[in-house]
């Protein structure tokens, strides 16, 4: 039950005292960074193999491998090189591409923070998807039905989104605190409730776009939209995501409430003995986590001209879990992981256009990265020079029964 490895490995900007050093002399965050980087390299290798297997030119050349083996090898190298070049350039190859990457990263960062924060309080929040959907419903409703002056409208719509997500997350916290209902079960079930609520709402006249029979809402009014940067799709919601990350960092590392959350996450029994209210911590953690996910939902409907559809959440709520895992449950790590996943998503679209490599490759890359991050011992057996990491996986292993 209790986890004795909760050594608070990453208090990011706190001056690294000697106590935070691991055996190799590197600070723990650097070791974790190295492991994450190695995981990314390994994932790219796995991806390369898949590209080679799936490439038509390589298959054709392999048909006469014996006659001209170099053909197969050069075809394989070309396929991998071109695909990864397109992926890279598509992600960071210019202002537009970078803007697109940041746009894709925006909801992932907020969603990731929602999962990270709950992780730190010892809760495994699988419900970011549902919280995001409810947030999007609230925000878009305010966005396209109300009429408010510029600025105020956006503010009210964003707040509505926060409230929506906070409600959906809060239900989980209260159930956990009062009845002991396991948050994993409850959040998964509430995801279903949220998606079907959305599907139903889209059939009602309140949400349906006038003149259309399809389940698609109007686009929110211009006053309620985040201002965009130039001609790109990047919008001010990205800045809000960064602000949210700073807030979560402050909350966890500088506030009394955050201290309680972390203490409960590290050892709920000990916290209770120390006089903290574990239930209160759970409710607070889930309300804030829900609000963060709700913010991600608002960014979807208020940011990029998107109407509310049954696919508004896509898989962001679930990708957010992988983002949080990769980010090791820290705000900074989550932002970086969100940026990486956003870049992979944006680059993946360009990659499929230029080399017709299937989009699902990026999904595989993301999954494999997280797989390796979650299994540091595996990475270390492949790269033996990596220093040992203390408290590895403390965040990842917690949650289910913590």
């Amino acid at each position, binding site marked *: 039950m209790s986890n004795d490895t909760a050594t608070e490995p990453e208090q990011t900007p706190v001056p690294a005292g000697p106590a935070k050093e691991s055996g190799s002399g590197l600070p723990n965050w650097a070791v974790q960074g190295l492991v994450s980087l190695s995981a990314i390299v390994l994932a790219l290798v796995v991806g390369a193999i898949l590209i080679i297997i799936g490439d038509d030119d390589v298959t054709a050349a392999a048909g006469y491998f014996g006659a001209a083996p170099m053909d197969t090898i050069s075809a394989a190298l070309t396929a991998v090189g071109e695909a990864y070049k397109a992926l890279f350039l598509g992600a960071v190859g210019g202002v537009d591409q970078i803007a697109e990457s940041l746009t894709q990263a925006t909801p992932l960062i907020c969603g990731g923070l929602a999962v990270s924060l709950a992780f730190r309080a010892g809760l495994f929040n699988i419900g970011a998807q549902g919280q995001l959907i409810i947030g999007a419903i609230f925000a878009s409703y305010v966005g396209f039905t109300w009429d408010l002056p510029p600025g105020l409208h956006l503010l009210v719509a964003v707040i509505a989104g926060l409230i929506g997500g906070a409600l959906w997350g809060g239900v989980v916290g209260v159930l956990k605190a009062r009845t002991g209902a396991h948050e994993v079960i409850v959040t998964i079930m509430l995801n279903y409730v949220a998606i079907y609520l959305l599907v139903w709402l889209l059939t009602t006249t309140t949400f349906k776009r006038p003149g259309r*029979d399809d389940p*698609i809402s109007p686009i929110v009014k211009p006053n309620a939209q985040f201002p965009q940067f130039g001609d790109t799709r990047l919008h001010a919601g990205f800045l809000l995501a960064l602000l949210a990350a700073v807030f979560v960092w402050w909350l966890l590392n500088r506030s009394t409430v955050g201290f309680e959350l972390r203490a409960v996450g590290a050892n709920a029994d000990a916290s209770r003995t120390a006089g903290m209210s574990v239930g209160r911590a759970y409710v607070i953690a889930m309300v804030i986590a829900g609000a963060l996910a709700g913010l991600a939902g608002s960014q979807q409907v208020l940011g990029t001209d998107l109407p509310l559809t049954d696919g508004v959440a896509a898989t962001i709520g679930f990708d957010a879990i992988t983002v949080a895992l990769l980010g090791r449950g820290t705000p900074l790590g989550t932002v970086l992981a969100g940026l990486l996943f956003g870049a992979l998503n944006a680059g993946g679209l360009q990659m499929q*256009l230029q080399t017709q490599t299937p989009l699902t490759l990026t999904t595989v890359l993301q999954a494999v990265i997280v797989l390796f991050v979650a299994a540091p011992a595996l990475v270390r057996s492949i790269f033996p020079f990596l220093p040992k990491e203390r408290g590895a996986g403390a965040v990842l292993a917690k949650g289910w029964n913590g």
Partner: protein
Amino acid sequence: MKKYVRGLAIVGAVTLAVAACGSKPAEDTAGGGDANKDFKACMVSDSGGFDDKSFNQTSYAGLQSAVKEKGLTEVKAESKSDNDYPTNMTAMVQAKCNVIVAVGFKLEDATDKAAQANPNIKFAIVDSAPAKPIANLKPLAFNTAQSSFQAGYLAAAMSKTGKVGTYGGIKIPTVTIFMDGFAEGVRYYNKQKSKNVQVLGWDDAKQAGLFTGDFEDKAKGQNTAQNLITQGADVIFPVAGPSGLGGLQAAKASNGKVNAIWVDTDGCVSAAEYCSVLISSVEKGMDVAVHDAVVSVVDNKFDNSQFIGTMQNGGTGLAPFHEFDSKVPADVKSELEQIKADIISGKITIESKVQPKAS
């Protein structure tokens, strides 16, 4: 050392064997139609992806056939989420496509915007239509209520229990149009033959019925179909894409007691393993419509009038009976032909409100 020698020998032998199996093909430039290599025919999928065994896939087949026929260059972009539509549409414009086909109503906003901003590029959109016609955007719609009407009649005629069942994926007009037509077809059969065949799973007056909630979950489709079968239905009409395959699975498991009618494509072709339980299929000719739209741009005959696939123009219809050819009575076959003629002539009017209207 000996080990290595043996290893080398094996490798050598294998290399020789492989070498014997293939020779490098000569540079092949004789590919028939490169006539319009500079013409780019592009397609953006919705979040279902091109391998959805349903409307993205069928539309893509239409694009491929046009590309092959006219020797065009094909560019396709798959969307993973609703968030990708504007990006993919912009990317297609930047790729200097000559014609861009968008698949599904969810792409409407992105397509309208791109079409208005790029009057030189031709666009087509499947299963949707802009609120106001746009000069370079051709909507492609399908009145599948017509062929589903026939399917309903056929199902009622083939049912021994007097109950037929249907279920949908998600309650959207492109799904309920099938179920509307099906229910109306059964009612028509009851009227003609003074029978009382019941439709389970869809009430077209109330517009309420049975839905699996998505188009992906095969197990849910199987449960839903099993539910209908338990209530006595012996002909199932699943309108749920891959989720509907679960319905066919349930029918197959009944050992001949329950049969099914497939939608979108000829099930005996797209899901051949279930052909033994498929009485027929309601075809939705998205491939033909996309093909024709692309070809019209190549031939400089593009117009922005809405294409509505009907039984008259072959845009929708009933697929062959395949293995049921001998089991469907001859008089039912001729009655179906009569229904087709009556729908085309307007003698039978279909009431479904979600039928595409000519603009």
